[in-house]
């Protein structure tokens, strides 16, 4: 046990952007802006349900990385939740496979209003490497309404943070669907 505690103490806090010991300015800048918006619009709490609707799993790896010690997205009030019922935002990766079309629509319907949809990754944004075919519907917007696109193959955690921020600071909160 002592070894474990020792390792934890020696590792210290590595989360970037806690002033004044900022190591990665991008994390700090984007993160602080994000927090300000979430504080204002969502009283400090924004819940995201991630839905893989046909991705190669590359985007999921980078979305996961948002929770590692360097980005620690939860400190900004952003949580990934287990049910669409708990979510403000659906974060959808694609392309939407035809076999996931019904499941994605049902997940969208199960999400309470007001809700927003972020399409993540080149495939989710425009179909990417897979496009539209007998097996793929292509972009997420071909299946459900999309409020924001975060491109990249896959987008980096910083791209994802920036994207989240742009959704919220764009005052789209007044234009929610339904």
């Amino acid at each position, binding site marked *: 046990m002592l070894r474990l505690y020792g390792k934890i103490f020696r590792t210290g806090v590595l989360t970037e952007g806690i002033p004044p010991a900022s190591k990665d300015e991008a994390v700090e800048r984007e993160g602080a802006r994000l927090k300000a918006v979430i504080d204002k619009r969502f009283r400090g709490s924004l819940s995201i349900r991630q839905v893989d609707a046909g991705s190669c799993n*590359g985007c*999921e790896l980078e979305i*996961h990385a948002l929770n590692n010690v360097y980005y620690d997205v939860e400190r900004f009030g952003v949580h990934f939740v287990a049910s669409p019922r708990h979510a403000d935002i659906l974060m959808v990766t694609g392309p939407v496979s035809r*076999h996931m079309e*019904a*499941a994605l629509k*049902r997940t969208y319907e199960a999400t309470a209003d007001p809700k927003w949809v972020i399409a993540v990754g080149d495939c989710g944004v425009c179909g990417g490497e897979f496009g539209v075919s*007998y097996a793929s519907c292509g972009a997420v917007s071909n299946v459900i309404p999309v409020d924001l696109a975060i491109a990249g193959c896959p987008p980096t955690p910083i791209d994802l943070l920036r994207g989240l921020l742009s959704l919220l600071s764009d005052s789209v909160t007044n234009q929610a669907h339904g």
Partner: protein
Amino acid sequence: MNQSKEFVSKNSGRQESIITENLDARAMLDAALRSEGVKILPITPSPLLPADLTEIESEDWGKTAQQASAQNWRWAGAWAEDRGSDLAMNACLEKEGRYLILRTYLPPDEPSLPSHAPYYWAADRAERHIQDLFGIRFIDHPDPKRWIRHQAWDENAYPLRKNFPADGQPPPSTPPDSNYPFLKAHGASVYEIPVGPVHAGIIEPGHFRFQAVGETILHLEERLGYVHKGIEKIAEGRDPLGLVKLAGRVSGDTPVGHSWTACMAMERAAKVEIPLRAAYIRGILAERERVINHLWDLAALCNDVGFAAGYYQFGRLRELWLRENRALFGHRLMMNTLVPGGVSVDVPPDAAGRMQDSTASLRRELDELLPILDANSSLEDRFLTTGVLSSELASALGALGYVGRASGQRFDVRRDVPYSPYESLKVRVPVEVQGDVASRFWVRYKELRAALRLIEQMLAGLPSGDLVSEWRTPKEGAEGFGAVEGWRGEILCYVRFGAGGRISRYYPRDPSVINWPALEKLVLGNIVPDFPVCNKSVNGSYSGHDL
């Protein structure tokens, strides 16, 4: 024979028997087949080197599998191909580091073939995949219900037939596949738990149907195919670089592994030899891919049993390597680093120095974490004896990678069918025999350390030279076979060129195709709450399976 020397040099105790087996595996199988009246037509020289290629009559297809199974050949994969006037059907077997590809031809109208599934567990879903996409009926298949097809195309339409357009004729909106005939259990206090396709986490989609009594899992049936994106179909007509790009997205956690296998198959078909420096750089990229994925799996396994400190420590180490990937190779997951004929990234001396430092530093961290993990009783409680896959089952399935090696299966392409640069390196392959979650955790830990050693060997021996060889367009009909040890295990690939150097057929076999069925067995008798950690310990790729 080069192979057998390599194999024997690290197993001197078993030297003689292995040489005999290695020389005789093919001869023994051929003799058994002849005595069964099977007409075999070996194609020499094989167009699919290092694999042998043998043609047989379609009515002998099942009998051949029966003999091969009796002689402990491993069943490694199957793929079909529409060649216009007929359908070519292929199955890949392996024994003692020797690949044998069986091939037969079928008429395009109502084709049928004796199934391999009665003799090989792993053939079950692979044949159903072919049945749904080519319309080949497998006689005596124990469970021939649809697999990769849900409701996006008609039962009597076959997307991988050449007359099926890539766009297909999908319905305006695809209904859910709600009437799939899952196995049901009946009886007092037996109940059913449907899970997925959308899971309660940041995970790929798939469906698991549990039959449980209390907390105990009585039966699990997997239903995959949700992320079928038509990869095999949209590969057709691509140029070689376009195929490498697609291959890098077969499974987003394995861009190097899959693009290497695709490059290898295309380069063999085109008879292009890559520069030695490119082979070393591919090796470095592949071992780095193993490191970041194993770190992530170790983190996630800790997380699934509530050991947050382990989750964050391994996640931290992984992020450092992702950042280094970005700095050195321009991409955190090392996508787009391979090209037909070589690599698109170099390792200049300063990059090599940086990787040497990060490798040494990761080893120090792992040294520090080892006693912490080892002495952690909560990990021990949850990992030991959980999700046991016996060596017998692993062998019957032909389980690959860390799943096989945690259950006594020794096969590793890097050592047993070595390819450049591994043929000049010393590849250590750790094996455990307990077959539980703990074994799959520790095999990964040991593979991680072995990968660090390989990276150091490759950095130290990095030859100078070109990064890419000039591409030579292969003639129509040229075909090639690739086999690479990805981080999940053996990846196979078949490529055939059409006119103008364009791809006519691409089939990538991710190790997950073989390993997924193991999960159905290893959870039996475990409690439902242990399913997540059991699933993570296998960590099959949904995308790599569904294609």
